[in-house]
């Protein structure tokens, strides 16, 4: 028997509120299947299962808020049955009754007016029915919770921890992007607008390819030691429209063609802004890239998102005076920065990594 525990969906999460189960006792599960939707300080996240199995029991109900690591469901491993499976030692709460939740018509109507999902509330009416009063109590409770404030606090906690624990070093380099921009102009000229590539995608690909040769920057600092990540999953910092920041992972960037990355990036940004990210996307990022080019700043020196060990910042791409082969010219350039954890690498290593990015960006055909 497996105790499915509430996973940490990032360094800034220490508890979560179950919004919805997507599984019921008896369901067969496949690895990667979405089992629940959990609200963190930042977003509602689809939590995925990490192995095959069968659902035996659900231990918490929608609306429950539990710390990371709390068992939330019992799963049977393939081939196990409820009778033969060893019961975990921890006390198991009584089975949660399944079926249609009892919600009074008045509660249903009011919940619709208030935009509250009454089916996740716990009821105080006859036979546990959700009553009008329960909905109004939930509305009163929900109102003062300010998602922006909560997100600010979550970011603040993670960044404070980063600055407190991680000995950062910073490097910066202006990289010429003439070749990239020329290649892009030619490439996009033949494509319909929706299929055109943005420069950011090429930069992400170059960073990912460079990481293949510099694995000390792609991974996590945990338990006093560096652990390289199993894949190159770039955290893409996305500014949310209502404020705040989230950095979901774009998976296996080094292995995917540009067009696919473009599609996946668009999808990821859109889902980040509509609060429908998957747990792996929030937990997996192995190095974060923050591009503040849109905002027009020349450089950005970021704070590492723990437990990652490095962050690449990219400033605005603009034509700037540039000297090449002794001649002055106008050249599109961008300032790349690296913030890295001194426990996992040093400046020399970091400088070679930036140089590799620069080298890759001079040959856009190879990206």
């Amino acid at each position, binding site marked *: 028997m497996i105790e499915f525990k509430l996973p940490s969906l990032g360094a800034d999460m220490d508890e979560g509120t179950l919004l919805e189960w997507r599984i019921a006792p008896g369901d067969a599960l496949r690895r990667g299947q979405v089992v629940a939707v959990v609200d963190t300080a930042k977003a509602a996240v689809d939590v995925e299962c990490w192995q095959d199995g069968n659902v035996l029991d659900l231990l918490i109900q929608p609306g429950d808020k539990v710390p990371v690591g709390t068992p939330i469901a019992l799963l049977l491993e393939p081939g196990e049955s409820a009778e033969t499976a060893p019961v975990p030692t921890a006390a198991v709460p009584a089975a949660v009754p399944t079926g249609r939740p009892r919600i*009074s018509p*008045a*509660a249903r109507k009011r919940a619709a007016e208030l935009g509250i999902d009454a089916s996740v509330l716990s009821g*105080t009416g*006859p*036979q546990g*029915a959700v009553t009008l009063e329960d909905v109004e109590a939930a509305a009163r409770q929900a109102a003062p919770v300010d998602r922006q404030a909560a997100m600010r606090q979550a970011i603040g906690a993670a960044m404070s921890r980063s600055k407190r624990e991680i000995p950062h070093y910073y490097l910066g380099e202006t990289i010429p992007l003439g070749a990239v921009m020329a290649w892009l102009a030619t490439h996009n000229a033949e494509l319909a607008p929706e299929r055109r590539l943005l420069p950011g995608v090429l930069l992400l690909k170059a960073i990912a390819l460079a990481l293949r040769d510099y694995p000390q920057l792609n991974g996590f600092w945990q338990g006093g030691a560096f652990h390289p990540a199993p894949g190159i999953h770039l955290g893409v910092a996305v500014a949310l429209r209502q404020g705040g920041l989230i950095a979901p992972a774009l998976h296996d960037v080094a292995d995917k063609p540009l067009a696919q990355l473009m599609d996946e990036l668009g999808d990821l940004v859109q889902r980040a802004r509509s609060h429908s990210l998957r747990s792996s996307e929030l937990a997996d990022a192995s190095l974060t890239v923050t591009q503040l080019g849109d905002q027009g700043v020349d450089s950005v020196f970021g704070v590492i998102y723990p437990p990652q060990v490095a962050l690449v910042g990219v400033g605005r791409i603009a034509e700037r005076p540039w000297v090449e082969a002794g001649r002055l010219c106008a050249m599109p350039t961008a300032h790349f920065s690296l913030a890295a954890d001194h426990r996992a690498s040093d400046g020399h290593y970091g400088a070679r990594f930036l140089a590799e990015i620069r080298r890759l960006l001079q040959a856009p055909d190879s990206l």
Partner: protein
Amino acid sequence: MIRTTYREALREGLREALARDPRVFLMGEDVGRYGGTYAVSKGLLEEFGEQRIRDTPLSELSFVAAGIGAALGGMRPIVEVMTVNFSLLALDPLMNTAATLRHMSGGQFSVPLVLRMATGAGRQLAAQHSHSLEGWYAHIPGLKILAPATLEDARGMLWPALQDPDPVLIFEHSTLYNLEGVLDEGAAVDIHSARVRREGRDLTLVTYGGSLGKALAAAGQLAGEGISVEVIDLRVLHPLDDATLMASVRRTRRLLVVDEGWRSGSLAAEIIARVVEQGFYELDAPPARVCSQEVPVPYAKHLEEAALPQVPGIVAAARELLGRG
């Protein structure tokens, strides 16, 4: 404001009607020399004479039918039937003639008859004198059904009933005759609306007639537990005053009906159906009802009490509706 009883209030209503309109007369078994089974008409024979206060033979069919004929002939008869159980003997003229004639004559004839009768249990009179069949009469189109539960209604409903061009049946609960209290002579009495007898926020308790006192007692007890009960006295069982019911349920979101009739096919069932039809989305709990056990009302006191709606049962049903069962 005068101190009086329900019985005396009914008698005052009769006396006033007899005095105001020479077409009004009272007839029924023992209404004259004996003064009425429940002593409601005591003294009226001496005051108004044998032409106006008429004892009848022991035949509900004949004297109710005679009342219908008198009404058709221009009189304003008040017919007293001892208890609702006996009125079934007169169901044929009541339903097939009195209730239908306006419709069947294309509006040419109407039957301005008033029929008074005792209903309900609680006085150890056993099954044949104790049933609450007013819900059956409330099923019949063309009849107006009244259930006075207060001194004011006992006093005041008769005259508007006599003004009504169609048959009106007045059901007097037999436990109310000895009810004593202060009658407000200035109170306006109509025969079309329900009344809120006690205001409340959490629960609408709908009842009428002999159950009103129990409902108010239950509401008082529930108030002590912090449950605020609104008590509605239906007063008119047919046609029902939906507007008052719905206005109350929209405030309280919960409905409990107390009805001394048998549960299946009861007036309580009709009220719940209407509230669900008109206010399903206003409700915060399934409507509930406290009715009589579906047995002939027993003679033995403890069995009779067990068969009827009682305060503890009403209180328990109310708690259940609020999830505090």
